[in-house]
């Protein structure tokens, strides 16, 4: 059987803007595949091509072995799609939305209840509330239920957690992990780098091009530069001082630390310490650390600009 999603050399242009170029990848059965990149990178365009809502200029793609151009009607019956913008009926209640989407696909909520049960029980207390009056996290759970109600073979989730708080995001990803175990292939996009770590493989996308496709751990291993976590009492002054140092390659805030790379790696750490000494930073510390996925993505972005 062919892989659930096969993308070969897809290109798409809007006017003079090259939205996608040379996009090729495969998503395997039961794989949670992440498309990681900022707004405007081309993620939604790719989703729309794969869900047969938009035609590519060049290249081929298939979903469950069906061609996205020739077999568009058949594809629409077997995929679940959560678009980036909340697309349920705001004036229908939670229960009505679910029933509506089941009916469209010629099925019933009861027939596939087992698949959505774990998610639905969390929103069931609000089943009589109009969808438009739900909080952000609840809306996304309902949208996921509606995308699953016809037992799709492949799920397309376009930024399901944007604008969603950290607790709801965590719950949402726990649900995706469980769905994957049921054999559903999932293509999910996100601007949150921490979510990349929860995918089997990720593709980093920037300006319409894929920068890297790998398991997240492999992307992290590719980060070759020595990296330090630096902190002091006055972080804003420290960041300015570090950026003014001649051997500084990059210096970015990362939570309570700054992440620093130097042009000559470990060679000039002594010079850095001599440079910082007269500046008298209180509570100064500088420790070597392993890169995270966000460090890697920023490094890739810089080298592709």
């Amino acid at each position, binding site marked *: 059987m062919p892989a659930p999603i096969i993308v070969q050399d897809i290109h798409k242009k809007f006017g003079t803007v090259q939205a996608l170029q040379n996009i090729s990848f495969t998503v395997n059965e039961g794989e949670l595949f992440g498309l990681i*990149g*900022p*707004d*405007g*990178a081309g993620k939604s365009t790719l989703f729309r091509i794969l869900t047969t809502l938009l035609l590519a200029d060049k290249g081929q793609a298939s979903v469950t072995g069906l061609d996205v151009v020739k077999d568009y009607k058949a594809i629409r019956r077997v995929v679940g799609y959560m678009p980036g913008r909340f697309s349920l009926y705001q004036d229908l209640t939670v229960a009505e939305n679910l029933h509506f989407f089941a009916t469209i696909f010629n099925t019933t909520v009861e027939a596939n209840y087992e698949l959505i049960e774990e998610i639905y029980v969390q929103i069931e207390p609000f089943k009589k509330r109009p969808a438009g009056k739900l*909080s*952000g*996290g*609840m809306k996304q759970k309902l949208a996921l239920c509606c995308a699953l109600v016809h037992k799709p073979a492949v799920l397309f989730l376009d*930024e399901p957690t*944007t*604008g*969603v*708080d*950290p*607790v*709801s*995001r*965590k719950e949402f990803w726990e649900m995706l992990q469980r769905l994957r175990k049921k054999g559903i292939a999932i293509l999910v996009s996100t*601007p*949150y*780098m921490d979510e990349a770590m929860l995918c089997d493989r990720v593709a980093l996308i*920037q300006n319409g091009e894929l920068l890297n496709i790998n398991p997240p751990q492999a992307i992290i291993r590719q980060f070759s530069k020595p990296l330090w976590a630096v902190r002091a009492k006055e*972080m*804003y002054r420290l*960041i300015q001082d570090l950026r003014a140092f001649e051997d500084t390659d990059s210096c*970015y*805030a*990362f*939570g*309570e630390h700054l992440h620093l790379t130097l042009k000559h790696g470990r060679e000039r750490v002594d010079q850095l310490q001599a440079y910082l000494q007269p500046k008298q930073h209180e509570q100064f510390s500088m420790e070597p650390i392993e890169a995270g996925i*966000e460090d890697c*993505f*920023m490094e890739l*972005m*810089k080298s592709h600009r």
Partner: protein
Amino acid sequence: MQPIVTNALTKKFGDFTATNAITFEVKQGEIFGFLGANGAGKTTAMRMLCGLLRPTSGEARVAGYDVYTQADKVKRNIGYMSQRFSLYEDLKVKENIRFYGGIYGLGNEAIREKTRQLLQKLEMEAEADLLVSALPLGWKQKLAFSVAILHDPSIVFLDEPTGGVDPITRRQFWDLIYEAASRGVTVFVTTHYMDEAEYCDRVSIMVDGRIQALDTPRQLKAQFGADSMDDVFLKLARGK
């Protein structure tokens, strides 16, 4: 005078209490992180502080003005920027600046001077006549922030200013926040990125309409025995 002072500030919608007796102060030049789960009451609280929504009970003074009786003065003396709505895409860069300058009551001379300064600071002189829709997202965000503080307000409200933005632009945006705060501008910011919570001087976390925690990130982590603000948030918001 503190830029924000509230006392038991409350908003009810019917029998639902969206914001439940919140009491806090924000200091001059402080970066104050206002966190909470979706539906915890952040937006309602923020709208009351901006003079856009009349509270049900309690008190609030923003930039020295009472939110009940001087809502117009509050609006005039604050800056506001959100991820969803900030600039007009179909106006040019300089037209957006002019528009907001007019809204905030600046005269023609002041608008001309501010436009020059702003474009120079953002290194966008060459883009002055471009439509905002043609700008990359990162530039838009920086322009939106600069426009929000065009009239030199003492306090600026930022509602999820970095949602969906790439990691490098997100950090450049925080450089602007730090720079404004170092000039004495008070920054009131909401975010769902917990690493950004670490950049704030103090952070409050709302749960079910109440402020459940308020302190420096370091103190909050110590208080909850957590390694990161993400842990603090999960413990508070899930522990109900």
